[in-house]
């Protein structure tokens, strides 16, 4: 199977309110930057384009259609869209390259969550007959999951606060972060609970923004003369939707995807996990079998800024950045979708062989 490389990645700042910016205006700056990084002019210079977004964030049917206006799709381009995080747009693009219909692809994800009440909006993602009519928001569902873990003694509130403290401190080095600061475990524990047992700090913020990536065959990366990292494994897996039917304290689908993606075939220097709630980072790290040798969420993760529909792609981009900078040789990126980590995608990214 063809080796596929990441050659460019850019993310906007995660901001709490992008103001009057529309989606096209969110996308254009990041794709312009990624074109510059790769040395191409526009979407005409890649063989395939795929994006991820969600109509309900914009409150419009076919919200992604206007996104095409950001691409310069004249003459027409080969283009597709997933109503999922853009990490799955990357997955679709990889299939396109593997089947020989493209050598390169532009992937982007975008979301402007600020105009709505995101946790309530996402409650309409639940089973429309039995769950959605209860309007259980994402925070309440995650709180139940955290409560289960605390009651079973699988985590402590201290453990959760440690995740938050590390995220805020790591985010000090991330210029795109929305929340960063020298926050101690005691500072977190001193906060009152918001939806018990979660404190506001345990919950990712609502952010507006976009991210973009260019991938290609290794041959193409060499032709372009660009530093690159190789995607050595990728897999995803979904579980039952009924929260009562699965063990919410574990992530079986992450474990399975990790095995298929080959996470355990080498040391993991860095891991970027899409954990919108502090306790979920612990579930994921355990499911991925990560130990002390792995730096988890050095960007601060999504607790420092959560670009809905782009955060999964951003996790992959953050690992890519650390590999091409030489900071890490091999890393794992994770993306999630659905309530309480229902659907999970795991990517393994490695240093190019020439660089090793």
């Amino acid at each position, binding site marked *: 199977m063809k080796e596929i490389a990441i050659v460019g990645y850019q993310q906007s700042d995660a901001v709490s309110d992008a103001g009057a910016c529309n989606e096209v205006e969110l996308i254009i700056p990041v794709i312009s930057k990624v074109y510059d990084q790769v040395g191409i002019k526009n979407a005409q210079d890649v063989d395939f384009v795929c994006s991820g977004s969600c109509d309900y964030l914009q409150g419009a049917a076919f919200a992604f259609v206007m996104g095409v206006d950001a691409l310069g799709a004249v003459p*027409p381009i080969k283009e597709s869209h997933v109503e999922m995080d853009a990490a799955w747009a990357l997955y679709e693009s990889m*299939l396109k390259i593997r089947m020989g219909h493209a050598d390169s692809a532009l992937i982007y994800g975008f979301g402007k969550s600020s105009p709505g009440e995101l946790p309530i909006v996402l409650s309409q993602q639940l089973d429309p007959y039995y769950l959605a009519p209860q309007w259980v928001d994402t925070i309440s569902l995650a709180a139940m999951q955290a409560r289960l873990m605390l009651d079973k003694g699988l985590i402590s509130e201290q453990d959760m606060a440690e995740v938050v403290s590390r995220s805020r401190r790591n985010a000090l080095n991330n210029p795109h972060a929305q929340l960063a600061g020298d926050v101690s475990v005691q500072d977190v524990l001193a906060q009152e609970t918001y939806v018990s047992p979660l404190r506001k700090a345990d919950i990712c913020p609502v952010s507006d923004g976009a991210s973009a990536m260019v991938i290609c065959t290794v041959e193409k990366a060499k032709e372009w003369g660009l530093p690159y990292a190789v995607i050595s494994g990728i897999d995803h897996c979904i579980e039952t939707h009924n929260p009562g039917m699965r063990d919410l304290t574990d992530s079986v689908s992450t474990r399975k995807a990790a095995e298929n993606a080959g996470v355990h075939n080498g040391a993991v220097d860095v891991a970027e996990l899409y954990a919108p709630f502090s306790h979920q980072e612990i579930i994921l790290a355990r499911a991925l079998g990560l130990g002390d040798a792995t730096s988890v969420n050095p960007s601060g993760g999504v607790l420092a800024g959560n670009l809905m529909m782009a955060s999964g792609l951003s996790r992959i981009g953050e690992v890519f950045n650390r590999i091409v900078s030489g900071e890490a040789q091999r890393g794992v990126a994770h993306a999630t979708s659905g309530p309480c980590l229902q*659907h999970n995608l795991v990517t393994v990214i490695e240093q190019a062989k020439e660089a090793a």
Partner: protein
Amino acid sequence: MANLAAVVGTGQTSYTTKRGDVSIAGLVREAAVNALNDAELTWDDIDAVIVGKAPDMFEGVIMPEIYLTDALGCNGKPMLRVHTAGSVGGSTALVAASHVQSGTFKRVLTVAFEKQSESNAMWALSNPQPFSTHLNAGAGGYFAPIIREYMRRSEAPYDVGIKVAVKDRLHGARNPLAHLQKPDITMKEVEESFMLWDPIRFLESCPSSDGACAMVIANEELAEQAPRPPAWIRGVAMRSEPTMYAGREEVNPQAGRDCAADVYKQAGIKDPRKDLDVAEVYVPFSWYEPMWLENLGFAPEGEGWKLTMEGATSLDEGGDIPWNPSGGVLSSNPIGASGMIRFAEAARQVRGDAGDHQVEGAKLALGHAYGGGAQFFAMWVVGSEKG
């Protein structure tokens, strides 16, 4: 070079205004089970599931595939959700095919659906946006001026659309799954139906349907062992262009022409009218048949309507290139599934599985879907032979 892949099973629900007897999950499961039965397979034989549908606002469920996991036997498997406007049913089939053509999976299930009765598509398409002009026109209002421009340029007689409306309903009467069953429809009846968006009359428009369509796509080795004839995927293509730009050719969009040229090249098709035996093409408003006959190269520009009027696209008139023998979108329109129905019906034709609407001896068929402001295109060519 892509790996060979083939359709080894298709399944559909019947199409109707309101399927009150099933939930959304029940609807998609019905189509999926029909496809598995056709392929003589079980849920365990499926490696991944690829789901497509038009905007989530049509049912009011955000990313409904998340809730459909259980109904589609997807626990512990990869699931992908495609959304590319009206072309989505076709794009979903192409993304499903890429799972196999890339060598990543051996056998996948793909399902597309719409349960339009859960909501109101006209509303969902027309809610005002803070940064855009509010059209409040629905799809018919959007396409009517483009059709008028086609009529002006081609000098086609006024009743071409009426003829298509009759032809596709007569085809639909041969298909027990079709939503509209009008075996006695006449030109006069269509002409006298009320004008919705001039020049589109009520009976020149597609219905609003509930329904789902599914296919099982397998790799070469498994397709060769399939109990029923496979439909080999001979070409796949998609193209997009922006909704509006200076100089955009809206009547005969370049994205459609490029997409057709790409898929024909892969399938070795030089003269589509001669080389193809049948086509299932997305015609939601009658006049789009002559327009797409030209866009897809079945007729020179300005002359597509002549094929329609000569009966070339009619099964009942013994035409040489039947279009939409299933009755097409004009007979059934569960929006998100409509593209996949075209792709699945093309596969049924080359598998010799199309019942009373079978084109005799069909060996090579085109499946076509378009969406947005006629700016997103998805096409495949399937054949009874590997090629």
